[in-house]
């Protein structure tokens, strides 16, 4: 067994940060506990709930199903990196407007999943939103507000000049 700590340098939200950790350190724990990105919510820790979803080179992944050491060659975006200054991302705005959250535990994963969904498929309807968001679990809202938020965000982003 090797429990040697190594330097892990990651690019997160455009900044390069490094910390010591063992290779067995999960990306979710490393981001949250070592680097302080507490928006990475650690739920089930086996890839079912979607709360720890982050963007890896703009693609959503479960950060509990990767080791931090594997993320060295990639750019990571957490929920903290989504807003531009004080201006929230259109998906964040829509979640607030449509009550897409109650306790907020699932919200970072939901928002990042929705950002990717809308980017890949700008034309959304209720069915495609429900399918696209089905890998993220929410135990508060009953999903109605979340679905409305994602639909509204998709419409708003379409009408925005890119």
């Amino acid at each position, binding site marked *: *067994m*090797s*429990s040697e700590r190594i330097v892990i340098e990651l690019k997160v939200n455009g900044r390069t940060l490094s910390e010591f950790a*063992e*290779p*067995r350190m*999960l990306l979710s*724990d490393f981001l949250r506990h070592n680097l302080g990105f507490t928006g990475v919510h650690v739920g089930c*820790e*086996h*890839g079912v709930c*979607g709360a720890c*979803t982050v963007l*890896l080179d703009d*693609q*959503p*992944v*479960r950060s*509990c*199903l*990767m*080791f931090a*050491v*594997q993320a060295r*060659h990639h750019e990571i975006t957490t929920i903290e990196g989504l807003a531009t200054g004080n201006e929230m991302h259109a998906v964040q705005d829509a979640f607030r407007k449509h009550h897409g959250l109650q306790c907020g535990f699932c919200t970072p994963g939901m928002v990042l*999943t929705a950002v*990717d*969904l809308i980017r890949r498929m700008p034309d959304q309807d209720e069915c495609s939103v429900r*399918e*696209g968001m*089905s*890998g*993220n679990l929410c135990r508060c809202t009953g999903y109605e507000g979340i679905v409305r938020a994602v639909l509204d965000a998709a419409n708003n982003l379409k009408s925005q000049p890119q």
Partner: protein
Amino acid sequence: MKPASFKYVEVADEDALAAALANYGDEASLLAGGQSLVPMMNFRVVSPEAIIDLNRVDTLSYIDCGEDTLRIGALARHAMLEDSDVLSRRCPLLSRAVGNVAHRAVRNRGTTGGTLALAYPGAEIPLALMTLDADVVLRSQREERKLGIRDFILGSLDTALDADEYIRHVEIKLPPAKSIASFVETSRRHGDFAIAAAAVVAARNDDGQLAYLRIGVSGGTGAPVRMAALEEIIIGSDLADRVIADGVHETIDGIEVFGDHHYPEDFRRHVLQGVLRRALNEAIFGSEHRHVQ
């Protein structure tokens, strides 16, 4: 819920991968997408001494579609298959199957080689590859060998992969250009592994006769099963509902199906018949329209 300590070995090319496997053998697990291995490590169901990470071996990450043969590298992510235009045109069964695999965040990491090496009975891509009678190419420092998928997947979570071998790619003989594919599964929740799944590819000849038919099922069957006997029954028939229904009933009765505490054997057979009849309907009568157009 944290993995036990391990030695992390990252390899950058296939020679280094083969060398690392020769060196660590049984003590190592290969880490590709990690979408099954890492949860098993988090639960400490497995605690490998060493992890050989092959995610940087770019030469294993491709989809190469020739005239008659499709090759998919072991490190091709499910999302790569999902987004591939050439795959949806030339091998639609794989496109249909991959859409049923978990969720996008999992498909962004999970790989073709990984799902084959795990050989989980409810997994979709192994079923599609079994239905298409794919070959699996394995490599080690000793040799490279090609196995038919029936000789590769030996049963539930059981493959012919030796401890020093890795999967290089799969090879699929492409179905006819005008073929129609269907993939139907039942699962408890969207994105879960299938309780039962059926895959069908059908094509008609210029006279409108059904000339090509590939059928496979999985879920409770150990390895996925290619239903060659049913293919023969249907291809030589008038395609009447009754003939297909009886054929499905008879051939599903004839395969080995395991029950468990969630899904007893007779329930599984019942669901297998249901998904298979739906998949057959969609592909066979879809191929009729395809021909007329």
